[in-house]
């Protein structure tokens, strides 16, 4: 196992005084990747939800049509 390169955790955070660049780029990368995963997942949930709404609407239409005597078919 390669040894831990930094003397202390504080050095690790300082990252040889490039802390801003290193942590900013790694942080942003994770934000972007996690955001992409989260949005993709939410899109799937939203689709299922929209489909349920649509099925309910069709049921309502069918039920409404069956109640009324079927209208005279237009020419």
């Amino acid at each position: 196992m390669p040894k831990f390169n930094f003397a202390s955790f504080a050095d690790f955070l300082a990252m040889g005084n490039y802390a801003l660049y290193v942590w900013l780029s790694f942080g942003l990368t994770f934000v972007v990747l996690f955001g992409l995963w989260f949005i993709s997942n939410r899109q799937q949930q939203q689709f299922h939800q929209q489909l349920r709404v649509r099925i309910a609407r069709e049921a309502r239409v069918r039920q409404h049509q069956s109640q009324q005597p079927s209208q005279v078919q237009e020419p």
Partner: protein
Amino acid sequence: MLFNATKLSCVRQDRILFTDVDIQLSAGDILQIAGRNGAGKSSLLRILAGLSEPSEGALRFQGVDLTKCHDDYAANLCFIGHLSGVQGQLTALENLQFWRACWQLKPADDWQLLATLGLAGLEDIPCQHLSAGQQRRVSLARLWLTPARIWILDEPFTALDQSAIGQLQSHFQQHCANGGAIILTTHQPLPMLAAQLRQLELEYRW
């Protein structure tokens, strides 16, 4: 059997317009596709004209599957959809010349034809200045020139006056008499064509 389609189904923007539509068309037939607005009549015509792919189903022209005889079918087809196909900036004559050059139709007396269609005196005005009914006549003028045996017409009678409707129906009769076939959609009653007329009802699916 000039043309038949089996088990056609079409989905547009995630909505099923129609499924399992079968069509048989033999020489001399006129098939009217009826149905409420939004029932998919135009989509069905576009599929029959080979413009768009059906989700399922097969089309056969003279027994041969359409995918194998594209050009043969196209040569025998004249499709006039909602869009008139008439270019606004060109005059009626130039429009006819353009179509004759593209389809390589045999030369005919355009002036005489446009006159019979009631467009005397309007032949050399840009079509955008003509009324909707007159533009419709210019677009329908192709039916007098085309050698095609199958005509697929989407609402051909819209914006036409009584005399033009009568003239068009008699031309349809003549076309069917010498072995042609027509598929059309219209909300007009067609008294003169009752003999050969068959109906296909597309019901509106939610």
